[in-house]
C-alpha cells in the first residue's frame, strides 16, 4: 500500500488515499474515494528520479504519489517493460553514448553532410533564381556606395578583352563590371550569375600590371565555377536556422554569434577552393600563381595603412544577413589568414 493524493477533477480538493498496485490494475482507497482501474485504463507517468509519479484516469481524475520509487518498484512487478526511450533517458551509459553520437552526427553534418547537400542542391537552382539573387546582391552593393567607374571606357574595354582572351572553352561565363569602390575600397566580388564586380581602387593597386588583375579575375571566376555564392547562401541559412533552434532559448545573441562563426569557416573553405582554381588557371596559361599572392599582399598592405575599405560585402551582422549578402563573395571574404593564403599560392 502506497500513500498518495487523489484529485477527482471536479474540485481542487486533495484526498489522502492509499494505492494498491496489483496484477490486474491499481486500487485507490481513502477519504471518500474507492475505485479500481485496470492498467490499460490509466496512464502512468514515466519513470524519473525527481518529481511525483502521476496516474491519470480516463475521466480526468489524477493521483500523485510522492514516493515514486516505491510505486515504480511495485508496478515493475506486475507490469514489466517500459518505453525504450525512458530506459535510455534513465541510464547514464546510454546518455553518454547519446552525447557522443550527437556530437559525431553534428560534426559529420557540418563538415560533410551540409556541404555535400549544398553542393548538389546548388547545381539544380533555376537560372532565374540565380539571376535574381545576383541582381539583388548587386543592388544592395550599389546602395553601399558603388558608383559608376571613373576609369576611361577604353581602359575598361581593354581589360575585358584581355580577360575574355584568356578564357578556355567551357569556362563559366563571366562579365566584368567596373565600379568606383566608395566605402568598399579596393576589392573584387563574384556574383552567382557570373558578374565580377571590380573596383577602381583595386585596378589602381595593380599599378599598371594587368597580369595581377587577371589573376584576381581568375580567383573570382573560381567562385562562379564552383557556385560558391549559392552554396554559401544555402549553408549559412541552414547553419543559422539550426543555431537559432539549438541556442535560441538561452540567448539569441549567442545563436547569432555561433551562426556567424560557423559560416565563417565555410567561407574560408570557399576562398581556398577559389585560390586553387586561380592557381590552376594561371599555370595552364603559363603564368605563376604567385601573381595572385602578390596582389593579396598589396591588398593587405593597403588596408594596414588605413586606406578605407571593408572586408565584408555586407554589414557583418550575423543576425541580419540575408540571402543577397551571402551570395556575393569578395576577395577578402571572412578574413581568412592572408599570410597563409599567400604562402599556399607561392608554394604551388
Amino acid at each position, binding site marked *: 500500500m502506497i500513500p498518495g*493524493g487523489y*484529485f*477527482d*477533477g*471536479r*474540485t*481542487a*480538493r*486533495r484526498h489522502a488515499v492509499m494505492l494498491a498496485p496489483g496484477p490486474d490494475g491499481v486500487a485507490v482507497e481513502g477519504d*471518500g474515494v474507492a475505485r479500481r482501474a485496470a492498467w490499460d485504463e490509466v496512464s502512468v*507517468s*514515466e519513470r*524519473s*528520479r*525527481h*518529481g*511525483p509519479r*502521476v496516474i*491519470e484516469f480516463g475521466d*480526468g*481524475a*489524477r493521483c*500523485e504519489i510522492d514516493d515514486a520509487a516505491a510505486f515504480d518498484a511495485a508496478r515493475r512487478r506486475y507490469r514489466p517493460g517500459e518505453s525504450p*526511450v525512458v530506459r*535510455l*533517458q*534513465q541510464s*547514464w551509459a*546510454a*546518455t553518454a553514448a*547519446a*552525447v557522443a*553520437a*550527437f556530437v559525431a*552526427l*553534428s560534426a559529420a553534418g557540418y563538415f560533410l553532410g551540409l556541404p555535400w547537400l549544398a553542393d548538389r542542391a546548388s547545381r539544380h537552382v533555376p537560372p532565374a*533564381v540565380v539571376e*535574381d*539573387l545576383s541582381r*539583388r546582391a548587386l543592388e544592395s552593393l550599389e546602395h553601399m556606395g558603388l558608383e559608376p567607374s571613373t576609369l576611361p571606357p577604353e581602359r575598361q574595354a581593354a581589360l575585358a578583352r584581355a580577360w575574355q582572351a584568356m578564357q578556355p572553352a567551357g569556362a563559366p561565363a563571366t562579365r566584368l563590371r567596373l565600379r568606383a569602390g566608395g566605402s568598399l575600397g579596393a576589392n573584387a566580388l563574384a556574383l552567382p550569375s557570373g558578374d565580377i564586380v571590380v573596383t577602381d581602387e583595386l585596378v589602381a593597386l595593380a599599378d599598371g600590371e594587368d597580369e595581377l588583375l587577371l589573376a584576381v579575375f581568375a580567383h573570382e571566376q573560381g567562385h562562379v565555377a564552383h557556385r560558391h555564392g549559392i552554396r554559401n547562401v544555402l549553408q549559412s541559412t541552414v547553419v543559422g536556422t539550426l543555431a537559432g533552434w*539549438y*541556442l*535560441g*532559448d*538561452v*540567448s539569441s*545573441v*549567442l545563436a547569432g554569434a*555561433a551562426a556567424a562563426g560557423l559560416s565563417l569557416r565555410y567561407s574560408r573553405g570557399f576562398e581556398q577552393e577559389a585560390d586553387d582554381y586561380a592557381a590552376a588557371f594561371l599555370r595552364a596559361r603559363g603564368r605563376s600563381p604567385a601573381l595572385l599572392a602578390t596582389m593579396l599582399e598589396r591588398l593587405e598592405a593597403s588596408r594596414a595603412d588605413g586606406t578605407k575599405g571593408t572586408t565584408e560585402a555586407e554589414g557583418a551582422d550575423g543576425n541580419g544577413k540575408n*540571402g543577397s549578402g551571402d551570395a556575393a563573395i569578395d576577395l577578402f571574404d571572412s578574413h581568412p589568414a592572408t599570410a597563409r593564403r599567400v604562402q599556399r599560392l607561392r608554394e604551388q
Partner: protein
Amino acid sequence: MASHHVPGDLADDAPRHFISSPGAAAPGGTVSGDVPVEHPIEFTGSGSEYFRIWIVNLLLSVLTLGIYSAWAKVRSQRYLHANTRLDGASFGYHARPAAILKGRIVAVLLLIAYVVLTQEMQLTGLLIVLVAAVVLLPWLLYRSLRFRLANTSYRALRFGFQAPLRKSYVVFALWPVLTLFTLYLLTPFTHRAIKAFQHNHSRYGSARFSFDARTRDFYLRYGAWLAGVVLAGGLPVLAAWLFLRDAGAGGMDGAEFFSVAWIWIYAVLLATTPMLAASLRNLIWSRTRLGPNRIVSRVSPWKYFYIQATNGLLTLLTLGLFVPFARIRRLRYLAACTAFVAAGDIGAFVAAAQDGPVGAAGDETADIFGIDIAL
C-alpha cells in the same frame, strides 16, 4: 510544506465558496478568521536528469529529421510541469504529441511560404507577408494561448483561456503596428495591453484571473531601464571621448569611435535586458489575481542578470551542452521567487464546464517565428 489554515468552526469537506460561479467575478475578501497563506512555488527538477532527457530527445529528433521533436517537447514539458509544485501538488501537461506534430508541420509550411514569397516575389512578396502577418498572427497567438492553457492543469483542474477573437486583433495587430509607427514609444503601453488581454481572459477551473497593473507602471520600469542604459552605456563613452580628445590620441577617427560607441551601447542594452525582464515579471505577476488570491514575485534583477549571463557563458564554453542545465537553473530561481498567496483553501476551486480539445497549430507556429509570450 507550507501549512494549511483550517478554521475549526467549518467542516473539512464543505467547499468554501470563494470561487463559485463560472465566469462571475470572485467575491472580494476572505471568510472572517482566515489569514492569507503564502505558498511558495517549489521546483524539484534536476539539471542532470533533465540533461539526460534533453540529449536523448535531441538525438532522436535529429535521427528522425525532426519528427520526434513533438514527442520530445511533450516529454520535456511533462517533466518540467511535474517538478513544479505548489502546496503539495504538482502541475500537469496534457498536450498530445500528434497535435504538436500537426502544429509543427503547419509551422514549417508557413515558414517555407514566407521564404519563397520574400525571395521570389520581393516587394509584392514582402507586402503579402506583412498583410498575412497582420491577419494570421493574432489568430495564431490566440490559439497558442488557448492551447497552452487548456493543456495545463493543477490538481486535475484545467486552466483555460476564453476571449473574443477580435480583441486578439486589437492587442496583437493594432497596438503593435501603432507601436512601430511611433518608433516604439508605445512599447510599454502595448506590453501592458497584451498582458491584460492574456491574464484577464485566463482562468483556473471556473475561477477567472484578473490583471490591474497600470500603463504608468510599465512606462516607469521601461524608463528606469533606459535611464540605466544611458548611464552605463553613455557615461563611459563620454569619458572615453573626453580622454581621447584631451590626450590627442590619433589612429581613431570620428566615424570609428562613433561605431565603437554604438556597439558598446548596444551591448549594454542587450546585457541589461534580463534586468528589465525581471522587473516587468515582478510587476506583471504581483498585479495578477485569481479572485481574492494573489501572486508574489520577488525576482532580483541583479541575480537574474547574473544567472542569465553565466548561463550564456557556460553554454558558449560547452558548445551548447549546458542548455538543459541553464534552463533548470533559470526555472529553479524563478520558482523560488514566486509564491501563491491563498486567501482560503486551495481545495475549494471548482472545475469549469468542459470545452473541446484545442489544436496546437497556434502554439507551434508562434514558436517557430520566435514569438514567445511567456514571462
